[in-house]
Every structure is written in C-alpha cells, then in structure tokens.
C-alpha cells in the first residue's frame, strides 16, 4: 500500500491530508496517517483481522466515521491496526478489513492520544484523477 499523507498544523491540534489514485486508497492512507500519529506503526505486527462497516450521509461524514471507528477499535477494544484494506466504498457506505494486533504496553510505543475525529475543515476532493482527503483530529 502506498503511504501518501502529510501532517497539517492547527493551533492546538493536528490534521492530515492523505492522497490516493482512488478514493479507497486516499481513505486507506488517511487511516495509516491516523494510526501513525497514535503509535509507532513499526512496533505493530499485523497478525489478526477485524471487519469494519460504516454508513454515512455523504463522503465527508463517511471519512469521519471510518477514522472514528479505527480510533474506537484502538481505544475501546485496544486493537492496534496497521494495515487497512477497503473492499467496498461508495459515497455513503464502506466495508473494510483491518489488520493488526492487541495493544501491549510492553511491546507497542504509543506516541499521542487522539481524542476524536472532527468536522473542522473536512474535505474529500478529486482533482485530475487524484483523490485528496483532509481531516483534523482533536488531541
């Protein structure tokens, strides 16, 4: 999977801009960006798989809900994902399998607590066959 994202500044928090040649790839890269803010992904071995299904009213909310779900899986179920494979994606629905392992204080290196995914300056855009998504996190 292509890793293609950058970190955006915010006076108190952090954002990301992720790109991809398809919307699926951009969403996958956004998920990688989120988890790489939270912990050192090099310390995660992708041994287990989980399925994620999300529905929303539009693409932008779908992005928020997709990333919120990954955050919940980490913070609520203590499952750290490092690989993201979106099987189906349309404007309002997404189905994915994510791979990772249960969080272990002794093995993994957490970097930053992300509290939530926000709607601040949220955007999902296509330009010359390239998809760019932008989203900010509450830290």
């Amino acid at each position: 999977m292509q890793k293609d994202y950058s970190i955006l500044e915010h006076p108190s928090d952090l954002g990301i801009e992720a790109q991809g040649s398809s919307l699926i790839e951009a969403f996958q890269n956004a998920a990688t960006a989120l988890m790489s803010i939270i912990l050192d992904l090099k310390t995660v071995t992708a041994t287990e798989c989980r399925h994620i299904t999300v529905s929303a009213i539009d693409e932008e909310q779908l992005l928020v809900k997709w990333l919120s779900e990954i955050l919940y899986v980490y913070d609520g179920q203590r499952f750290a994902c490092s690989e993201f494979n979106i099987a189906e994606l349309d404007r309002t629905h997404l189905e994915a399998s994510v791979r990772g392992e249960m969080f272990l204080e002794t093995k993994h290196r957490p970097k930053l607590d992300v509290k939530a995914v926000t709607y601040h300056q949220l955007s999902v855009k296509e330009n010359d066959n390239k998809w760019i998504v932008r989203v900010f996190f509450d830290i």
Partner: protein
Amino acid sequence: MLKKLDNYRHLIPKSYKQGMRIDGMIYADDELIKQIEKDLTKEQVANVATLPGLVGRSLAMPDAHQGYGFCIGGVAAADVDEGIVSAGGVGFDINCGVRLLSTPFEVDGIRAKLEQLINQLFRDIPCGTGRKGLLEVTKSELDKVLINGAQWAITNNYGDDKDIARIEEYGKIPDADPSLVSRRAKDRGQHQLGTLGSGNHFLEIQVVDEIYEPEVASKFGLHHNQIVVLIHSGSRGLGHQVCTDYLDMMQNGMKKYGISVVDRQLACVPIKSVEGQNYLKAMAASANFAFANRQMITHWTREAFKRILGRGDLKIVYDVCHNIAKYENHDVDGSQKRLLVHRKGATRAFPKNHPALPDDLRDVGQPVLIPGSMGTCSYVLVGTDKAMKETFGSSCHGAGRAMSRTQAKKETSADQLLNEMKSKGIYVRGESRSGLTEEKPDAYKDVSRVVEVVHGAGIARKVAKMLPLAVMKG
C-alpha cells in the same frame, strides 16, 4: 471589523458576517487580540453567533484560540425554549476540568522531599497514552459512576463526604442517563477510570506565592507559602466517544429541524428535541465520569502525601468544569431566563450569594482556577457580579495555546526543556518526551496577561498566584 470598546473588550458586530443573529465579543488587551487574530478564533465566534436561539453575545475569553466549530475559550447561552444544544459547543473532552487541593504543608518543610513525592505520585496515578486504570470496573458498576459521579467515588472510599461541597454541581450533574451512553463509549471509558490522560493534562505541586485578597484566600483555605496540588483531567475516551456519537447524530438530525450551519462541527439540535435531551443526559453522564476520575486521582494524591510526608489531609479548594453545557438562570434584558450555557474552554465564575454555591463560599464567591502552562504560574480567582451581568457567570480557563504542537516540537527538544525546568528548580516527570515539548511554556499565551484581562474587565478577581515546584505530565 472588530470594534474596540475599551482596554479589554472587542465587539464583533452582527454586521460582520452574514447570518449572525447576535453580536460577538472578545475579551482581550491589545497584545492578546493580536495573537487571537492570527488564527480563526474571530471567525468561529462569529459563526457561533449564527446559531438559532442564542441570547446576549457569542463570547470569547482572553485565552481563546482556534478550536473546531466553537473556539476554545468560547461561551454561548441558548434560550431553553427556542435555543439549540451543540455537542461541539461542549467539546470532545466533556467536563475536562481542574481541581485544586490545599495541603497542611509549607514549602520550606517539604522541599527536600519534593522529588520523592512527585516520583511517588507518578508511580501511583496512571498517566500517559495507552495506559489502563488501576481499577477496571464492570459495565454495571460503570453505570453507577455515570449516575453518581464523585459521589460514587466517595462511596467506594476514594475521599470523604466533605469533598462534595467543593465540587461544581456537587460532583454529580443530575439527569445523567447511562443508557444513552453507547457501548462504544463505555468500552473506551471502562479501562480509563482513574487515569490522568496525556496531552495538556497534568498534576502539579505548587506553592502559593502571592495573595491578592487575604480574606477571600483565607475563606478558600489558602495562605502564603502553602503547598497546593492542581489536577487537570477530564472524561477520557468515554467523553470523547459520547461527543463523537452525538455529533454524528446531530449532523443527521439538523435536517429534521430545518437547521443549517456554516461549519459542520457546529451541528446542533433544539434543546427540547428528543435528540437534544438525549445528548444532555449522555453529556451529564460523561461529566460525572470526569468528576469521579478527578476524585480518584485526589485519593491517590492524598495517599502519596501520607506515605512520603506523613499526612494526607488535603482539602479540595474547588473543582471546576471547563467543557460543559449547564442549565442556569441569568438576567436577560431585565428579566430572569432559563438558559443552557455552553462553556467550551471556559470556567463558571459565580459571585457571592449565588444559590449554586455551598454555604461556606456563599459570602465570598466561587473559586475560579486558572492553570498556567508548564513551568509558569497558575491563579485562583473569584467569581463576580459583573461576570453574571456580562458573561453568563463565566471567565477564562487557562493560558490558551499560542503555538501548534509541531511548531513547539521543532523549536525545543525534550532535553532542553527539562534543563530549563531544572534551572528554575522545577522537577518534571513526563511519560512522553515528545508530549513534554508539545506542552512547553511558550507554546501558550502568557497566563498572567490573560488573568490581568479578566481581572481588569471585572469578570473575575485575582485572589492568589501559585508557582510550580514539581510537574507530572501524561
């Protein structure tokens, strides 16, 4: 255009932006307004003023900075019959707040044991990213936490009954309904009860350095050279998920009520709607989780003091919420109205004689706790009548960020920062080195300047200033 009214007040007239229903007001001096104008704070104050059913003005305190939807440091009050409630107007960290503990110790008596003390606190209070709490409660026990807040903690031997009177809302916001808190939120909260968290959350041992109003300070139980402890924490993942869930619900619910907003993060629904009521009941539950959390941290702080210094009889000076929406009565255009006051990074600052205050604070007013950034000073203020008239009984909540996290990290290394703190005689224990630099003192506005503005504008009065001696960061 901003209209400067006096040295502390800048008006954003309704004409500033299409759709504004009320004026906006930023409390700041000439220097702070320059900093505030560097980001989107002013636009966000104006955007809030477009929401339906707000009364008075859309306010920003002098520590304001850009947030999401609402600015951080924002206050907005809605008429309960015609107004809206916004999950984003409370924020993700529901009832993030601060608690100040007074101790029977003076600085000279404990200086030699300070390092030992902060190390003990660091061992006893879980903090940092990815850390579990010491106590994992069952889901049914968690429901009791969500209903009873700090009172749950006290029933379970984390503190004593006297603590309750010195907590905003007596440590328990009524009408909390755990059944309206999602399983997801409970999953996140279940293993985080009794944890400090990370980011800007901290526990600091401080010394009272200056007293401005001796009589009020004495009523608060504070005196010169006294050791105090300031705790900053919130509702952890549980509150974050509740906000996420209801923000989502409000996105979908707005259409039903014919509401449109200029920024999706401002999503809101009528207070009286089923969705609005459900959010407020889930918010109350999250706020209660935060009260219980700070109560447990207080207990372990007392235990650590007892172990290292032989006495653990620390008293709560007060505990205030920073991120909350509350039903309150306020005077609007000469008549008393029932309002829902959103405080997003702002502190309640009720004056003397307010019925919400406990008997022993009734003749002085509510303590308002203002933490500074790491290594700088913090303040205790007292609420005023003027705050009731102008700001729905609200004041600032801290220094307010002035620099992004990435910028802060670029400019200073953890070693540099630790050396700087050491040279000031401040012990710092931090779980994360990069987390430390993100919270470096100059990443924030000057807290003393912020406090001078609220004091000068009369929306709180200075009572005491504290200096840090030892800091524990997540």
